[in-house]
């Protein structure tokens, strides 16, 4: 696996921050915006610095999300010890919502007068980001992009798992990438769901989310090509359903979420007792946390497992969030640790549910990870220890 987020530019750095309970939220500095009062999970490296890490030549066409994606996928491929031969048949499935929008918003007004940045015209679209990362890393198998808002990378992971299970692919790199842009920051701001404080998921007085950015990828391999490589975890369940309620709000009963979780449990062949921890979507908006809690209560009843949202560490990285949280879930499984739901003080009056508030040591076998997006797109994944 590989990751870059506000917590750091590698799995190790992210893990250290999670252990220390140290948030990556701050005020935007690299993103030039008038909304500098809004906390965000910003990766504190500029695009030229990120391009430097990848040794890119001058005149490259890597937008910020592409840079993140290449760095994270590189780490994953390196850890998985994939050879040049392996890469020839390795697929790449990436989720993104903004694509190359950071380039577009920078150069949009210049394209007509100036020639020099016109190579970014095509870079706006999500598929460009994905194809560029794939070619940079010599991934020559099936390449595709999923854009289902905040559930994009979770869907990418799910598709990779399904393709391997069906025998269509032996090996695939899956995950997602998104970066902070004026487009998304102002977009969410116009919806009045951003908080001016560090977000407090599942808290009764929560008042909105903080945006974030980053990328994360997993290398999935079929059993018969594993050889003796160490396995970080398994994907034992996945479910995708649509809330079919409203474009940007979730239904009160959390129907989409409920169906997605239910389907994931069915695929895994699990009942509610099997889940040791839920890494919640937990964006800290009034709507999501209520809706998600309703779905969780419908599935787990009185026996809600330990749960937390890690978005107060990284911000909500939109399409990348499912993948970031997949990495966090795998770290939790490897270390038998549950990362805390920061900034929580008081349970929601409707549910009385208390998330895990301090780093908790616990034997973990199976973790449920939720990602719910605009357009009612709900996806849940179940990660299990490899035993």
């Amino acid at each position, binding site marked *: 696996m590989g990751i870059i987020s506000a917590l750091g530019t590698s799995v190790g750095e992210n893990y250290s921050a999670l252990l220390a309970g140290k948030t990556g939220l701050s005020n935007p500095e690299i993103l030039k915006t*008038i*909304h500098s009062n809004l906390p965000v999970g910003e990766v504190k490296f500029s695009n030229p610095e990120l391009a430097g890490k990848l040794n890119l030549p001058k005149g490259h066409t890597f937008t910020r999300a592409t840079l993140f994606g290449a760095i994270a996928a590189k780490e994953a491929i390196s850890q998985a010890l994939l050879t040049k031969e392996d890469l020839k048949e390795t697929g790449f499935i990436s989720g993104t*919502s903004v*694509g190359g929008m950071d380039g*577009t*918003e920078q150069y*949009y*007004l210049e*394209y*007509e007068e100036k020639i020099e940045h*016109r190579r970014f*015209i*095509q870079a*706006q*679209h*999500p*598929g*460009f980001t*994905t*194809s560029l990362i*794939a070619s940079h890393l010599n991934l*020559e*198998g*099936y*390449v*595709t*992009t*999923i*854009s*289902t*808002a905040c559930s994009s990378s979770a*869907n990418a992971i799910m*598709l990779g798992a*399904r*393709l391997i*299970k*069906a025998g269509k692919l032996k090996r695939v790199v899956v995950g997602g990438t998104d970066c902070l842009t*004026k*487009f998304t920051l*102002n*977009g969410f*701001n*116009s*919806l009045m769901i951003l908080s001016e404080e560090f977000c407090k998921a599942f808290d009764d007085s929560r008042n909105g989310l903080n945006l974030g950015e980053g990328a994360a990828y997993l290398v999935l391999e079929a059993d018969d090509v594993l050889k003796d490589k160490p396995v970080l975890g398994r994907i034992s369940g996945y479910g*995708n*359903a*649509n*809330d*079919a*309620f*409203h*474009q*940007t709000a979730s239904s009160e009963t959390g129907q*989409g979420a409920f*169906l997605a979780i239910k389907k994931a449990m069915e695929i895994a062949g699990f009942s509610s007792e099997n889940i040791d921890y839920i890494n919640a979507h937990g964006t800290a908006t009034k709507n999501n946390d209520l809706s998600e809690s309703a779905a969780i209560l419908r599935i787990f009843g009185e026996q809600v497992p330990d749960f937390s949202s890690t978005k107060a560490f990284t911000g909500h990285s939109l399409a990348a969030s499912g993948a970031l949280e997949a990495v966090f879930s795998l770290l939790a499984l490897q270390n038998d640790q549950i990362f805390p739901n920061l900034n929580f003080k008081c349970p929601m009056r409707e549910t009385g549910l208390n998330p895990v508030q301090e780093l908790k040591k616990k034997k973990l076998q199976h973790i449920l990870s939720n990602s719910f*997006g*605009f*357009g*009612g*797109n709900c996806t849940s994944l179940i990660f299990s220890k490899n035993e």
Partner: protein
Amino acid sequence: MNNNRLYINGISSISAQPENAGFEGKLSTYHQNIIPAISPDYKQFIQHMALRRMSKSIKMGLTAAKIALKEAGINKPDAIITGTGEGCKQDTEKFLEAILNQDEKLLTPTAFIQSTHNTIGGQLAQTIECTGYNVTYTQNSASFESALMDAQLLFLEDKEINSVLVGGVDELSKKMTSFMYLDHQLKEQEISNLDLLKTKSSGTITSEGAHFFCISAEKSEKTYAELIDVSVFQAKTSEDISEKILKVLQINNSSIEDIDLVILGNNGDNRFDHFYYHLQNGLFSEKTQLAYKHLTGEYKTVSGYSVWLACKILKTGSIPEIFKLNAVTCQNPKTILVYNQYLGDNHSIMILNSN
């Protein structure tokens, strides 16, 4: 219980051509490089309080989807899978321009909400009240094919799946589409669309459209075609592509001899049409060869039109002259292979059989 055979029972096409162009009625001709699609009466399909917010892509997508579902006699499919290469550009442009012109102040949310690539899929789910599997693919000119591949996978892994709605949509937008002139995706001079494949210059013409298909596990008297396989791949050379085509045929217990007719994505761009010429002079030299982008323009999900065309040909047995690239004839084609690429990338193959 599905037996993993995929039947296309409902089809729809909204494009720069009138319905059934080539098969009946007149063709539309243009002398411009950016061609808007011909809109049906959206009010017949979408209620007005919803219609007021919708950009063209959403109107086209919802309408085409409803037409396909109605034809197949399906109220609620088990899944909705959409592909779009450039998403909801009109609303993206609107919101972006507001940000840039108003210095991030006093921005209204509607354009932002409508701009996400999965808006069409999401609105479809809401309108039809379908809570099933729902994903949007945005892999440039393989977006529609990726959506079809996912549908194939769904039928394979879940025997309870009975019907899946699959479609591709892309729209024009004022500014962003005009940028295609600046990076040489479009012909420098305006041309007549019917001359597209005769031009010996770089660039192509562009347009917009929506194509939806209702894929069912069951054959019916509505069935147009059986979807045999879809493949998306990377290729460096023309030989790679020929090899891949043969491989895909082999996996499906088939060979080049079984192919009656091919539909190719020639778009008049002399930098990349050589991928098609190589096949036309090689592997497909004895097959009836068709092209369509001189009628529909080129855009990321236009290959949806090629599937619509294949379905019409397989069902009616007729092959309109306007699509023909060569003089090889065939009567009542049984197997059609579709090949497409754009700017030398996102190569795809689709194979359909008559039912």
